[in-house]
């Protein structure tokens, strides 16, 4: 398979979040996504990296965030991994529920799921890996998210 892979190991900082977002934007442009898709991919990678830095690694300077991009003619996939205590995606409250609508936080993973074609979570030892996949238009046989 014809694939390009790029990976970054980043510190647990806000600067890393901006770097990850920019890297995602650049790769999405190269892959040929349209402007709206590029924005959505960049925001999803930003949100995943914020989760890794903030909730996963909790800004711990000893912990790193790894971001691995893979581009094929069919899709762009991004795996964001932290070294935190782990995340149970099933425990994330629905931000659209009336009791959560006016909460300040809790919309990041919801937006990622809304913007990407497929989102997978994997428990690591330690940490969590979230993989985001966006298919190049015309390579999307099944539609939305395949697993949690």
């Amino acid at each position: 398979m014809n694939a390009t892979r790029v990976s970054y190991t980043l510190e647990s900082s806000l600067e890393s979040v901006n770097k990850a977002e920019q890297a995602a934007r650049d790769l999405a442009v190269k892959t040929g996504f349209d402007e709206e898709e590029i924005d959505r991919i960049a925001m999803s990678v930003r949100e995943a990296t914020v989760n890794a830095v903030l909730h996963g690694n909790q800004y711990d300077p000893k912990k790193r965030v790894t971001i691995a991009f893979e581009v094929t003619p069919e899709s762009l996939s991004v795996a964001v991994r932290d070294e935190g205590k782990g995340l149970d995606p099933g425990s994330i409250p629905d931000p659209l529920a009336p009791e959560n609508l006016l909460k300040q936080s809790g919309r990041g993973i919801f937006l990622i799921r809304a913007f990407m074609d497929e989102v997978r979570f994997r428990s690591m030892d330690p940490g969590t890996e979230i993989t985001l996949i966006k298919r190049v238009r015309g390579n999307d046989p099944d539609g939305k998210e395949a697993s949690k």
Partner: protein
Amino acid sequence: MTMKASTRQVDGIIIVDLSGRITLGEGSVVLRDTIRDVVAAGNKRILLNLGDVTYIDSSGIGELVSSFTSVRNQGGELKLLNLTKKVHDLLQITKLYTVFDIKDDEAQAVASFSK
């Protein structure tokens, strides 16, 4: 990359003109501090002009919600003006479009506040 906020007053309404990115870190902090200062000065009728906001993330959305509830809890009103398509879409996806009072004409927005 950063966000700027400036305030002006029209017919007793404080208009906060925001530009740039409202994201985790600096942008969200600028918004929070600006709203805090405006409310502390006794102004509780606030119009947030988002026309020049180029980008907003979930943290920025959270800050908008927090500003809205904070002003409302103190008996005030906070409305949004001039949403870009990106911000409009985000508020629609997160179902916040119906929570906020959203305007696209400044004069009409100013007139819509309770006297």
